[in-house]
């Protein structure tokens, strides 16, 4: 199988302003502090991989960005705008729904359990958001949806329902659905973990393809170490709520001196 090498964005200008910044972000669920001060910058079109043991907080990091959870303290800046806070009479207060929606449009997410809408066809799944959220015309939305579905290889399933698709197909639809909204940054939450092994490959192919077109920043929370090495510009190892190790894939996955990271990686070498 010929694999096209993924263009690494390290070749692209380093001086661009980051599109996402986490400033000392903490998140607690009740008494349990899951994120203990995260500082992170994501450049446009950068591809990040987040790895770490369960409970380390890696999923929480992206859920905060997608506004599915609220930070207990700290700031998340998207494209220069504070995500969870807004200006009111010159002061920073908690953002309202309106503000969230304004900033959220740049972010897209693909879930571990697909979360396709079961009462809509594949095509409808991909057009409902452009039509109602972006107020695109029905024809335009259909056009772009079909284009995207073709890109993920599902053009012949336009009028099927999610229940008729395999796991791998469902995940590909989920990605098309998110891409149709043209987000600046795409979040992937362990998107292959719920799939049968033989279906993982087709999904990874699509992710690789997205990475190749270069324009979208991506954050992948994943256990697929080899894939991460291939696609990511930077790898972050999360442990117990902090970024324990950060660097290029070679640095983190092969040459790390971190004990915990090494024992974690050993589990995947088999």
């Amino acid at each position, binding site marked *: 199988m010929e694999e096209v090498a993924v263009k690494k964005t390290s070749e692209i200008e380093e001086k661009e302003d980051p599109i996402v910044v986490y400033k000392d972000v903490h998140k607690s669920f009740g008494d349990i502090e899951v994120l203990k001060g995260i500082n992170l910058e994501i450049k446009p079109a950068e591809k990040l991989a987040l790895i770490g043991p369960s409970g380390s907080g890696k999923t929480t990091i992206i859920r905060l960005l*997608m*506004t*599915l959870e609220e930070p207990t303290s700290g700031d998340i800046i998207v494209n220069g705008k504070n995500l969870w806070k807004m200006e009111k009479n010159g002061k920073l207060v908690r953002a309202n*729904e309106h503000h969230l*929606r304004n900033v*959220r*449009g740049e*972010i*897209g*997410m693909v*879930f571990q*359990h697909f*979360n*396709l*809408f*079961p*009462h809509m066809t594949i095509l409808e799944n991909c057009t*409902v*958001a452009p039509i*109602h*959220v972006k107020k695109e015309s029905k024809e335009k939305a259909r056009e772009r949806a079909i284009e995207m579905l073709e890109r993920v290889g599902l053009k012949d399933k336009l009028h099927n*329902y999610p*229940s008729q698709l395999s796991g791998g197909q469902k995940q590909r639809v*989920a990605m098309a*659905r*998110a891409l149709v*909204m043209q987000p600046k940054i795409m979040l992937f939450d362990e998107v292959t973990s719920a799939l049968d092994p033989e279906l993982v490959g087709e999904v990874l192919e699509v992710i690789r393809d997205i990475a190749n077109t270069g324009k979208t920043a991506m954050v992948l929370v994943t256990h697929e170490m080899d894939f991460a090495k291939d696609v990511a510009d930077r790898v972050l190892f999360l442990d117990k709520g902090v970024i324990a190790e950060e660097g290029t894939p070679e640095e983190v996955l092969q040459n790390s001196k971190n004990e915990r990271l090494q024992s974690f990686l050993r589990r995947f070498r088999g």
Partner: protein
Amino acid sequence: MRGFNITITVLIASAIFSYLFAFIAGLCRISENPIIRHVTAVYVEVFRGTSLIVQLFWLYYAIPMLFGIQLGSNWWTGVIAIALNYGAYMSEVVRGSILAISKGQTEAAIALNMSKFQRMRLIILPQAVRMMLPEFGNYTIQMLKATSLVSLIGMTDILYYGDIIRSSNLSQAPIVYFLVLIFYFLLALPLIWLTRKAESISKKGVASG
């Protein structure tokens, strides 16, 4: 035979109003506003905790007094009583179905940047309604049975006419009432069939758990 008219009109009106109440109350119960939530909860618990026949009589006497209106016939009293009673039960079904839609659906809708209203309208409610249909069907059949109670406040439904025949001819009583039962059953049959159909619709097209 003559009572059909009343029975059916009461049923249809009650059904429509009760669905209305059910949705309003169900949605109110999951509102973020605690006042709305609690006031609705009181309504639901009061009407679920008391008996329909008691509610019927109570309204029959209370409405003229409270509102000073003499409602021409007792048609509205009957409809309101049945609608309020079953609306309360069905609001629980509404609430339960909405809550049962998996969280992932809401999250996917958020990820696509839909507003709360859009989430409800496009994603949650279509799935929730499918789930509710069988229970709504069951309750509608119960409402059909409940209409027989309006004969007690003097409305001329099927049972009322049955009673008249019985009081003029006691020996015919069993046959008369048996016939009345048959009439109700015949009316119920289409509803039963619809409910069965609703059950199979609700099986497909829903993401739950």
